[in-house]
């Protein structure tokens, strides 16, 4: 049995699926989502192939968030001990928010009075360990507890497209909806404003997210 023919070589923007043969490894280098096996480049993810300086990368169509240091994220408090909060940042593992990196001074044992379970926070990933555990911090400009507005979720990889071209798309949505919007690297979006504006912004984001491939290929949505 044979796989996909690679006679014409890999094409930019083509949709690939796991196992697709992307040609010999001499001509191109393996980037994200590409594996070299017996001198052959193999796709390991379902997504759009991009070729950048002879490096093949696959931009997955769907993916879970993988935290990286300095990522801005919206998290939900999932639990706490006397001096630590456990934050759900949408990654495989909950992040840790130590009391020393929390929003305000809290005495030992009073973590729930500062941030209670279920509350949302805007924080930044400070450290990611090899075992995928991460530490987040709320020390920094703009990092805070979220008390108002609505939090929406889109695929994390779409965030990059929203902020392309100097945030043009995002600015458009903000102007149309008259809302304050913060997009974060884990795919969560905070929208604050009038209810009608929030609905408008959410609808626009959903539509953009669904038509993301048309958009990324240069079409208009």
């Amino acid at each position: 049995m044979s796989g996909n023919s690679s006679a014409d070589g890999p094409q930019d923007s083509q949709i690939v699926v796991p196992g697709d043969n992307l040609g010999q490894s001499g001509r191109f280098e393996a980037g994200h989502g590409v594996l070299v096996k017996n001198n052959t480049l193999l796709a390991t993810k379902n997504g759009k192939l991009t070729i950048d300086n002879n490096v093949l990368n696959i931009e997955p169509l769907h993916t879970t968030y993988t935290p990286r240091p300095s990522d801005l994220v919206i998290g939900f408090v999932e639990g706490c001990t006397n001096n630590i909060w456990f934050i759900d940042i949408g990654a495989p593992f909950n992040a840790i928010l130590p009391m020393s990196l929390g929003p305000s001074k809290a005495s030992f044992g009073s973590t729930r009075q500062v941030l209670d379970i279920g509350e949302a926070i805007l924080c930044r990933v400070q450290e990611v360990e090899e075992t995928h555990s991460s530490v987040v911090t709320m020390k920094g400009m703009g990092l805070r507890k979220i008390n108002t507005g609505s939090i929406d979720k889109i695929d994390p990889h779409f965030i990059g497209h929203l902020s392309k071209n100097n945030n043009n798309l995002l600015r458009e949505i903000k102007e149309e909806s008259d809302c304050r919007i913060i997009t974060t690297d884990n795919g969560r979006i905070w929208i604050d404003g009038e209810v009608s504006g929030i609905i408008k912004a959410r609808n626009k984001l959903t539509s953009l997210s669904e038509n993301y491939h048309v958009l990324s290929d240069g079409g208009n949505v």
Partner: protein
Amino acid sequence: MGGYGDIQMIDENGLRMDGRTATQVRPITIETGVIPVADGSCRMTWGTNDVVVAIYGPMEAHPRKIQRQDRAVLDVRYNMAPFSTSDRIRPGFNRRSREISKVTADALESVVLLELYPRSKIRVEIEVLCAEAGTRCVGLTAASVALADAGIPMTDLVVSVASGKVNDVVVCDLNKEEDNYGEADLPMGVLPNSGELVFLQMDGDLSPEEFQTAWDYNVQAASEIHKIMVEALRKGGVN
């Protein structure tokens, strides 16, 4: 001839009861993204079989004793809905569903790059809504599409298909009658790009020549099914 009585399931022209030839596969449809809350999902109909698969994760593995420090674990649950067959199935796990969950997990482990997610778990939920024959093959094939839809890195897709012997003739993709009254059944899981085998079971007796024929039928059918899987994944991507 084995099975029950003298039920004739192949006519003198070599056509089967449902009008297929020996090598023909039942009609297949695949749809991805059918469960919005899941990280990846797929609905596959194969003949009258109807299977939905949902993928959740990678997520922290619980309980901790199942965690592996160097890789993720695949938590596969195959389940047949009580209404999936004409005889009501008692809800919950039974010996058969445990066995199928185990062999499905083993087959998928050979393609999923588990080492990228240490201490994690990937949940694969396979729910059979309507069962005809070959649900383990449908479940495994649909699970590999759903994993790809979830963005889980894999070296290949897994295609599973079964051939068997009916009225002393080897046929591909058994239907309900052929499965119930046939003499043998050979489900296989194949990696279509490399041709590697990741899953093989056999029920009944086949001579070496019949085994080879069934093998060839399965590999040929896997190639056809792989095209449908790829098309579904590509279509899912562009909406």
